[in-house]
């Protein structure tokens, strides 16, 4: 046979057919995803009409408006909250991922499933669960009052802390999975060798395990950071008036302030930021994964 894999086989007999199969889907995603995105970037250069419509023109005012302290603060805060979320997920998820990677192979699947199941339940419902726990008359306050830990309910909900809790809760599985993949590949004999050479726990962790797991750590942080940065529901439901994030700002500009060009400009900034982070991470992690087969 000339060809080895299924792709090779199809390539010889059906390249024309492939395009027939591809084109409806490409057309669909192009029309309802890429065209709208292009429209958003086009509108970000337009101006707002008197009653909230769009006046087509070419101006950069929407982008220069973003430097206004009000918007800059929200953008900065979003990056900060998303970074804190990624860091907390890393700290919490690392032991779990390490435990799963070192568990018996037949147990690993079950553990991974246990990590993923909450992710597959409705995000809105999961956020609501935290409202139920954290609010003033909520479960946590009720329990603490009964236990005599506090004398009056404390305000837990509607704060940046609540937002970070909600984000960590929502995206922890995104951290655990890539970490697990990376840690599972770490050569156990290297760790054993370090123990034999009387390395301390911390030395094993920082000098052997963490460097080897770096691609997984980076992938996990990115997978948590990106959706946290663009989060809408979590800050909307758990955050207070001062915990607005980019997602809420975009929604506000589009649906409430009806300043579509400004909303579009914020969206474009977010998109460029997200895409450049992705591109950067691909470039940083690719050399690492290319080395792997050799080592």
């Amino acid at each position, binding site marked *: 046979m000339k060809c080895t894999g*299924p*792709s090779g*086989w*199809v*390539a010889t007999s059906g390249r024309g*057919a*492939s395009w027939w*199969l*591809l084109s*409806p*889907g490409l057309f*669909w*995603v192009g029309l*309802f*995803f890429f*065209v*709208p*995105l292009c*429209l*958003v970037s086009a509108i970000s250069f337009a101006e707002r009409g008197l009653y909230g419509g769009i006046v087509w023109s070419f101006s950069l005012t929407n982008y220069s408006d973003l430097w206004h302290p009000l918007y800059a603060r929200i953008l900065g805060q979003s990056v900060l909250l998303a970074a804190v979320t990624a860091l907390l997920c890393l700290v*919490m998820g690392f*032991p*779990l991922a390490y*435990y799963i990677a070192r568990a018996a192979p037949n147990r690993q699947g079950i553990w991974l*499933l*246990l*990590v993923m199941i*909450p992710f*597959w*339940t*409705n*995000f*809105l*419902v*999961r956020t*609501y*669960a*935290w409202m*139920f726990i954290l*609010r003033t*008359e*909520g*479960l946590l306050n*009720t329990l603490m009052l009964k236990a005599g830990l506090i004398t009056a309910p404390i305000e837990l909900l509607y704060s940046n802390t609540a937002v970070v809790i909600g984000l960590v*809760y929502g995206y922890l*599985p995104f951290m*655990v999975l890539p970490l697990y993949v990376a840690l599972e590949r770490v050569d156990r004999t290297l*760790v054993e060798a370090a123990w034999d050479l009387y390395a301390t726990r911390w030395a094993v962790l920082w000098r052997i395990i963490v460097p080897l797991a770096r691609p997984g750590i980076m992938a996990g942080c990115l997978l948590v950071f*990106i959706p946290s*940065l663009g989060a*809408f*529901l979590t800050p909307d439901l758990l955050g207070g008036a001062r915990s607005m994030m*980019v997602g809420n700002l975009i*929604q506000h500009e*589009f*649906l409430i302030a009806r300043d579509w060009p400004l909303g579009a400009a914020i*969206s474009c900034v*977010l998109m460029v930021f997200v*895409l450049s982070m*992705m591109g950067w991470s691909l470039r940083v992690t690719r050399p690492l994964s290319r080395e792997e087969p050799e080592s």
Partner: protein
Amino acid sequence: MKRMGGWLWHASLANLFFLYGPIAVLILFSFNASRLSATWQGWSWQWYRALWANQSLLDAAANSLWVAAVSTVLALLFGVGLALGLEGLPWKRQRQIEQALLLPLVIPEVMMGVSLLLFFVLIQVPLSLTTVLLGHAVFNVPVVMIIVRARLRKLDPRLLEAAADLGASYWESLRHVTIPLLRPSIVGAGLMAFTISLDDFIVTFFTAGPGATTLPLRVYSMIKSGMSPEINALSALFVMVSMGLIGLSLLLQRR
């Protein structure tokens, strides 16, 4: 490692407690007799009965099911086509197209909602349940594509070679060999897409017209207008339906 085993085990359990505790609490308190929902006053089914009697919720549920069903069918048509078609392209081109098609899953969902809203307004299509399901059919296409493609990669190429040796054309072998072998993963992908559509809030929020209320939109407005045990009951139902569907989907993908 063994030397850290005890500590790791406890940290892992703490993680699971963190992941499952809130959901468990939510479900438990959906059976609470008290309206002051954070103190336990005994078991009751009353909030579930209240849901059943609420006509606007039932209407929203019907809307959600309709949107999920139609958008799943669309996503399956496009997604399976993409998965099959990509196999026939040169490796480099495959990667390029795949990466572009994964973008809907990567960019923040708010942006997708906003851009669809803008698109529909600019081409003067009034927002309705139809615009919602069109949007859902977009983000579900890559979901279907990924799942079906994963299965396609594992198929034995000799089966296709055998079909070709027996004189089957490309389309004939697709119909009689490839598609039947892919069927479990296609059904699994469909269930996954159906669940994601059923659960979606953000894209729906931006693309829904007046009166086009789906269940998550209804839950959202209930939450915004104040907590009530009915929301717990509705949430508990949501959790169970999602978990059931996803469990089924994973079983089918494994086969």
